[in-house]
């Protein structure tokens, strides 16, 4: 719990460091991409800190490519 809050505070600090600077340069698109990525990263790390079971993204990749793998294996047998 403490760790999750620490991650949240770090993310807020990063956001406060970058967003005003970007706002001054009027790069709205950069701010948008930056905030989305930061949000994803913070959520991910808070999930890990709270020991929530997050499925591996590679499981999805495995799910996509398993038929191809089976096909190749069946060819070489």
């Amino acid at each position, binding site marked *: 719990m403490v760790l999750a809050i620490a991650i949240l505070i770090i*993310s807020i600090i*990063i956001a406060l460091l*970058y967003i005003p600077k*970007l706002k001054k340069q009027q*790069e709205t*698109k*950069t701010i948008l*991409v*930056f905030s989305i*990525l*930061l949000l*994803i*990263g*913070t959520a*991910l*790390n808070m*999930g*890990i800190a709270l020991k929530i079971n*997050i*499925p*591996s*993204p*590679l499981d999805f*990749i*495995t799910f996509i*490519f*398993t038929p*191809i*793998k089976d096909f*190749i294996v069946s060819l*070489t*047998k």
Partner: protein
Amino acid sequence: MEKEIISSRQFTIITFLLSIGTAILIVPSSIASSSKQDAWIAASIGVVLSLLVVKLFLTLGNQTPTLNFIEANEKILGRFFGKITVIGFLSLTLFAGGELLYFIGAFMKTEVMPETPTMAFALLFIIIIMYATYLGIENFARSAEILFPMFVLIFIFFVVSITPQIKFENIQPIMEASKTSILYSIIRFISVFSFSLVMLLMIYPASVNVQQSSKKGFYIGMLLGGFVLVTLITLSILVLGPANTASRTFPSYALAQRISIGNFLQRIEIIMAFMWIVSIFIRTFMYFYTTVVGIAQIMKLKDHRPLILPMGIIMVGLSQIVHPDIVHSNIYNDEIWPIYAFVCTILLPILLLIVAVIRNRKSQGNEAKTVNGENKQENEANAGNADSNQQSQTNTNNTDSNHQNQDNTNNSDSNQQSQTNTNNTDSNHQNQDNTNNSDSNQQSQTNTNNTDSNHQNQDNTNNSDSNQSNQTNTGNTNSNQEHQPKSDNAKTNQENQE
């Protein structure tokens, strides 16, 4: 984004260390488990086949000389399909980067510091990588240049000090493994070894100063990296034996633990671990850099630097969730990763290459027509001026496209060597016929522009003379006077291009 240029030597070093990458840690056990004592044969064949992979990357790189891989995707496939393929490619680099952080954490945790959580290693590693990405590819290339001699020294020391323990019984009988198992080993080896070299397309044509020698450097770096890997695989089979190599997670570390010179120089494996920490650093940096720059480019951002911190946070998080355990990682790396990497790093460039060639052929036809038309117009203008016979001679030379084109490439080559101007190099490589046509066009334009002053006019005629002499293959008879105007003309060409 300002343009960053690295030298071809730095490029070679990056290729070398990138191709070694994680392969040095995980490949020996992975391929020894399928082809036993013949793993070294599979690895050697894999290195040879990687030449083809490098050839593919180089051909693609030369198709789009001013762009990196991400921009080339969008240029060649169009905005919409380009974005889809780029997202597919970036998913590979993002997950692979997270995986590498997982590897370094798992390696340190299992072999060196068992009590420390893997998050700590991933965090320390990503801080270095974020800093390197913030400083840019030039600084990274310089640091690779510093790390390279240390790597080589440690590798030579490693090989020399492990040699006394070689038992040749371990490698016999040779050629016993079945063809399918060898095939699987080759696929696994190539997928870890040379597929990741596609990331060099992020820097290869656009930010390398001399293209010709860095082309050579691409091959040399890859072959040297392959040599290091084959040596390591052979050594681990010779010293540890095939069964032991296959059952270890990190055989090269186990190999380093065996080093014992006169029962005195022992336990130096952590110095050896410097090798794979360096190579993993290089590879993780390339994955991270590709991801960050790629995201910035598909979103059309001016600067990629603000994205570094959030991406670093995401990657640290990924390193914790990509593999719940080492079994998951082994299965993924042996079975899924080769296919996934093949689709994103081999099929995608092949697709790009085919589309680019077709599009080039189309645009070439169009451009040739327009060039001819312009030449005609200028001929008429010259006839109106009725300036001199010599001028019309130059124009006829221009309409003789092929020979003149050769002269032009010669000129721009000399420019390359003297100034190493990348813009110039790029235009030279880009569809050799097209730009050359436009070059000849530019030349004729300079001719018409220069008709005012007599002096320069003479230069032009001299140039046409030299061109003619080149055509008749008596280029050696060029006097000094003829050389000077030639260089002048080259300069004007350059100015026109800029």
